[in-house]
């Protein structure tokens, strides 16, 4: 299992999960800290101090300019992080076209849809595969294939593999002129009891 084929299994939610976890940690930490202060863990005198602490109020009124710049700085940072996070998680996963040649004058790219249709068609011809879906992920320079296959009940997975590597992926590699194409295959086992009938052309 290569790192790139492993990464092609599914769109990563790592960024969203990290940010969500950090936000949760910050909220929990703030809450626990406030409760601890309130219950007098840091001294019973501190527990009786007002929430809007006079010392802080005094510092803010003597250093008004600094306090304003700090507030603006915090606001800008929050705004940028929030905006970046939102755009990042709303952006759809790219479907790269594959560039076969970057030479000036003979630049050659293959459209995403063309590749995927070909691979899907090849995969559906395998015995025991009732449905196939294909898409490319990654960048135009380093594409990876994500293939999901629905297998008919009772199909031997090893036979499907042999056909997949020998026919479908071999052809795709040949078409891209690469020796290895990182591929993530997702199998749905036993989803239907019979293959879907051949489509009438």
């Amino acid at each position, binding site marked *: *299992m*290569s790192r790139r*084929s492993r990464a092609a*299994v*599914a769109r990563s*939610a790592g960024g*969203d*999960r*990290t*940010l*969500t*976890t*950090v*936000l*949760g940690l910050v*909220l*929990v*930490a*703030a*809450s626990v800290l*406030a*409760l601890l*202060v*309130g219950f007098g863990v840091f001294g019973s005198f*501190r*527990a*009786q*101090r*007002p*929430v*809007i602490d006079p010392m802080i109020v005094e510092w803010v009124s003597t250093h008004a300019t600094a306090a*304003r710049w700090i*507030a*603006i700085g*915090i*606001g800008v*940072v*929050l*705004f*940028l*992080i*929030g*905006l*970046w*996070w*939102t755009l990042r*998680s709303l952006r759809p996963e790219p479907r790269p076209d594959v560039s076969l040649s970057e030479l000036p004058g003979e630049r050659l790219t293959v459209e995403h849809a063309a590749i995927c249709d070909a691979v899907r068609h090849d995969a559906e011809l395998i015995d025991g595969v009732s449905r196939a879906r294909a898409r490319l992920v990654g960048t135009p320079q380093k594409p990876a294939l994500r293939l999901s296959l629905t297998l008919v*009940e009772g199909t031997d*997975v*090893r036979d499907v593999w042999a056909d997949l590597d020998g026919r479908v*992926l071999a052809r795709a590699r040949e078409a891209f002129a690469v020796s290895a194409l990182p*591929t*993530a*295959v*997702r*199998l*749905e*086992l*036993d*989803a239907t009891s019979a293959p879907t009938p051949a489509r009438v052309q």
Partner: protein
Amino acid sequence: MRLLLRVLAPLLGLLLAVVGLAVVVETVTLWVSPASSPLIVPWPTWLTAAEGLTWQSGGVRAAAIVIGVIGLFVLILGLVARRHDVFLADPVPEVTVTTSPRSIARAVGHEVRAHDEVVSASVVASAKKVTVKAATLDPAAEVRDTVRELVETTLARLPLARRPRVAVSVTTTKGVK
């Protein structure tokens, strides 16, 4: 949970952005033209409301608890929203093969239900463990071994990267054979 994360993550991001923007706007308004402050957020009202409160006040504690509960929810959401793919052994380098726990459960379920002595069965599967609950009209102990063997052979046919543990429980139900 993954779907919830997918929906909530951009909303949380948007919330952060809005809070940040509000802080900047209010601070700049207070600085540039104090007469028109507060512009949108009524923060002076909040300030007067919080004036008399100490860290011991019930309101402060309640707010802290509410924030803590929300934080815990967000934290757990971030931690549990992982994928539950079951990995199969790689046929060739550069190829990763996965399947869903549901697929495993379906394959095992078909085999178990096809067995003559089994009246009904339910299967729960994950990458680490396959749990089968079956009902039979025969003595449970005998059927349990058969079912276990059946499940083991089904799993052996799938080239799984790591073989899950198998837990089988069989109960005898009343009925006419």
